[in-house]
């Protein structure tokens, strides 16, 4: 071309036009943002430094119709901190994974790693681009990087599931430290079209990988929202708790009083150990107001995991929830605990355990899945976790789960409420097994024996042998935790742990 300036502008405008006005209009009509609108929302206003704007497909016949080759990559600022992003452009060959756009993703990962930047994936892709991947040469040309799917969690990754996510968008979501999904989007290995061809199973996309399945069954996604805008806001919020990279501690904010007066804790938690209550109310009376960021709420709901701020400091809350399964830790709850510990240990986030649990959930369902090994994996993760761990037993902690929830020297600070009990099993079960007396057959004898057994479970017994550092009243809980955090600072390493869980597998 004779005029380089004109050529530059024409090529730039063509790339910025993405898959063309018709496709973009269809998206707009359905209320879904396009790849560039999403980036504009993700980053602070005014700046997005794009790389690969002029990248196109490898195959000559596809080059004219693959602006940015379907994946928009670049860097900007999120709340004043630098970060990178990959935004899938569904209007360009379904944002399918190709030889060239795989290089763009690899570049973004490399830059993020070398420079300590969080990385965001805005997922919506149809899977591998068939014409690039078919045949032995196609396969030989792809998967060229033997470290492509290895993470050592050096910088935080966040992913949004914003449409059909097959192939790379599914993989990167599962590799990320945090994932949010717009209801109506789909996350699966392959589309229902592939499923029906391969195994003759005809399922709709929602059943194959819709939000309810990921919320309740797989736990692969942390949060669910109704719009693209909410998903992007959630990612910005997640990153506000995180350090930019693993070489620094999480950012601090000024502290706030909790939403609920800590003096009400005494009434929130019933004395009767058979009664349930919502642990969310307890959390609201401990952490800074409005700071609790709940992760995987519907998955394994007997265990709550989430980020929060305590007097301005990022902490991880891991709490039994008696309102669900009585707070009993089951197989999925162990998985949930492990993935949360991995997040906290990788990014120097102290873990606070709020304990009220009746023991591991026993029964054939868990045993069939290999519950004993899962319990050991949970304990292994807890014992390898090097960030400060603070535990408070509110009402009861029974059995082996006592260890998984921070007992037995598995916390830097282990405290018990003045009405809590700790024991090998529920006193009622112990009386029935050891004395052969149950509530139905001999209620008087049962009550007498139960009272005797309970006397041994006193918080002052465990504090007396210094297996607990403190006995506290419910109202003291927040202040106690703030003070304990001020002691357990890991100051010798500027608040950094050893990140022994940073190499843990994705699931």
């Amino acid at each position: 071309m004779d005029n380089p300036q004109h050529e530059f502008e024409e090529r730039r405008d063509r790339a910025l036009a993405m898959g063309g006005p018709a496709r973009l209009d269809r998206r707009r009509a359905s209320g879904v943002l396009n790849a560039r609108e999403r980036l504009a929302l993700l980053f602070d206003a005014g700046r997005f430094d794009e790389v690969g704007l002029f990248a196109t497909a490898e195959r000559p016949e596809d080059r004219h119709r693959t602006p940015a080759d379907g994946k928009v990559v670049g860097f900007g600022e999120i709340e004043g901190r630098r970060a990178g992003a990959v935004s899938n452009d569904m209007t360009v060959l379904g944002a399918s994974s190709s030889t060239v756009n795989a290089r763009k993703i690899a570049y973004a990962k490399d830059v993020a790693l070398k420079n300590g930047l969080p990385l965001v994936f805005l997922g919506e892709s149809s899977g591998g681009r068939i014409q690039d991947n078919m045949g032995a040469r196609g396969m030989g040309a792809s998967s060229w990087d033997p470290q492509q799917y290895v993470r050592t969690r050096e910088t935080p990754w966040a992913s949004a599931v914003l449409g059909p996510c097959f192939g790379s968008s599914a993989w990167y979501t599962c590799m990320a430290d945090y994932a949010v999904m717009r209801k109506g989007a789909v996350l699966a290995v392959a589309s229902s079209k592939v499923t029906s061809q391969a195994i003759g199973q005809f399922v709709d996309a929602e059943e194959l990988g819709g939000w309810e399945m990921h919320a309740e069954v797989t736990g692969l996604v942390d949060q669910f929202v109704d719009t693209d805008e909410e998903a992007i806001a959630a990612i910005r919020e997640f990153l506000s708790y995180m350090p930019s990279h693993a070489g620094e501690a999480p950012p601090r904010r000024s502290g706030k009083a909790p939403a609920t007066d800590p003096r009400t804790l005494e009434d929130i938690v019933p004395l009767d150990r058979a009664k349930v209550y919502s642990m969310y109310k307890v959390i609201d009376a401990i952490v800074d107001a409005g700071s609790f960021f709940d992760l995987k709420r519907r998955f394994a709901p007997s265990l709550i995991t989430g980020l929060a701020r305590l007097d301005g400091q990022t902490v991880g809350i891991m709490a039994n929830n008696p309102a669900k399964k009585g707070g009993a830790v089951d197989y999925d709850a162990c998985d949930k605990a492990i993935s949360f510990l991995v997040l906290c240990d990788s990014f120097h986030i102290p873990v606070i355990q709020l304990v009220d649990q009746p023991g591991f959930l026993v029964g054939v369902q868990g045993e069939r899945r290999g519950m004993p090994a899962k319990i050991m994996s949970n304990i292994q993760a807890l014992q390898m976790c090097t960030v400060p761990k603070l535990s408070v037993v509110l009402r009861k902690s029974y059995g082996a789960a006592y260890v998984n929830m921070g007992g037995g020297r598995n916390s830097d600070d282990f405290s018990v409420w003045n009405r809590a009990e700790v024991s090998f099993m529920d006193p009622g079960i112990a009386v029935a097994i050891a004395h052969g007396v149950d509530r139905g057959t001999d209620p008087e004898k049962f009550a007498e024996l139960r009272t005797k057994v309970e006397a041994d479970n006193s918080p002052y017994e465990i504090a007396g042998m210094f297996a607990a550092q403190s006995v506290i009243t419910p109202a003291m809980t927040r202040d106690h935790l703030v003070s304990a955090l001020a002691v357990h600072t890991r100051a010798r390493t500027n608040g950094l742990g050893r990140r022994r869980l940073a190499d843990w597998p994705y699931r």
Partner: protein
Amino acid sequence: MSKTKDIRSSLTGTVWKIDASVGDSVSEDDPVVTLESMKMEIPVGAPLDGVITEILVTENDLVEEGQVIARMSV
């Protein structure tokens, strides 16, 4: 358009009491059935907002984890 959502027992236990009736409008987490298990009274809550359309258990029934104990339209 409303769809049917199964309400499944969250764990194995005995039905202690039925908290909701067919036709009740319920919000997410409202108790539908309370089980006795792990020496506790454990509610099985509505998974979403909706209306109860069927109750499939009675008091003292033994239910398994995952068993459909009621249905709702959402």
